[in-house]
């Protein structure tokens, strides 16, 4: 397998059959994120981006730069669960939700400003974000995990 060089900008997209509001809830509320985001309980608000592991330990605590429900969310990213990653500079994650025809939305996740975080870039590249987005799509579209 070819080794990847550092990707300082990463872009991921997925179509999801759900309303912008449902997608917004799924990416901002811990009771949803723990079902598809490596069991992390993530809370995104205008105050910040906070993530906790299943054992309650703090996995992330970064500022929110933009909070525009249910369209656009921009927050800092630094993984605290691994000392190597925690030692790197913070990067940035942008979530964009664009309604499409037929009840679909296009969700775009851009992870950038990774120049000072090569290990983080490596750890989230490819499978990292891919699993999150395919898990999010499954959660929202099958509905079975969606309880009020």
């Amino acid at each position: 397998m070819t080794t990847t060089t550092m990707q300082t900008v990463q872009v991921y997209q997925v179509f999801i059959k759900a309303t912008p509001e449902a997608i917004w809830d799924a990416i901002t509320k811990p009771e949803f994120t723990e079902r598809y985001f490596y069991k992390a309980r993530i809370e995104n608000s205008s105050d910040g981006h906070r993530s906790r592991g299943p054992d309650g330990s703090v996995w992330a605590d970064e500022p929110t730069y933009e909070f525009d429900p249910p369209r656009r969310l921009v927050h800092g990213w630094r993984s605290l669960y691994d000392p190597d990653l925690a030692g790197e500079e913070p990067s940035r994650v942008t979530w964009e939700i664009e309604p499409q025809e037929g009840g679909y939305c296009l969700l775009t996740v851009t992870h950038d400003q990774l120049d000072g975080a090569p290990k983080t870039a490596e750890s989230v590249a490819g499978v990292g974000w891919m699993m999150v987005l395919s898990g999010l799509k499954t959660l929202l579209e099958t509905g079975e995990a969606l309880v009020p």
Partner: protein
Amino acid sequence: MCPRVDDDRVFKALADPTRRHLLDRLFQRDGRTLTDLESELQMTRFGVMKHLRVLEDAGLVVTRRSGREKLHFLNPVPIRLIHDRWIDKYTERHVSALADLKTALEEESS
């Protein structure tokens, strides 16, 4: 355009060596320009653009503007979804069929 939720576009996009080569180039290093992507191909700029368009329509390549440049990014999510939908299903059955065969053969020999 209707959301590209159908697998057909992804399979069609992958069914071409030039397009797979382009994806491999982006896998090695993401965020490339058209000029960069066409450099290793014996093909006109227009030809490469057509292939990139097919990859974009399948959602496998996403473009972003950066100043005057248009950068191409690999989006692996559709391949993951194909994997979840198709590959998992058949490899699972394959594995369980082998397990059944093993059980049957062992019962026979005992």
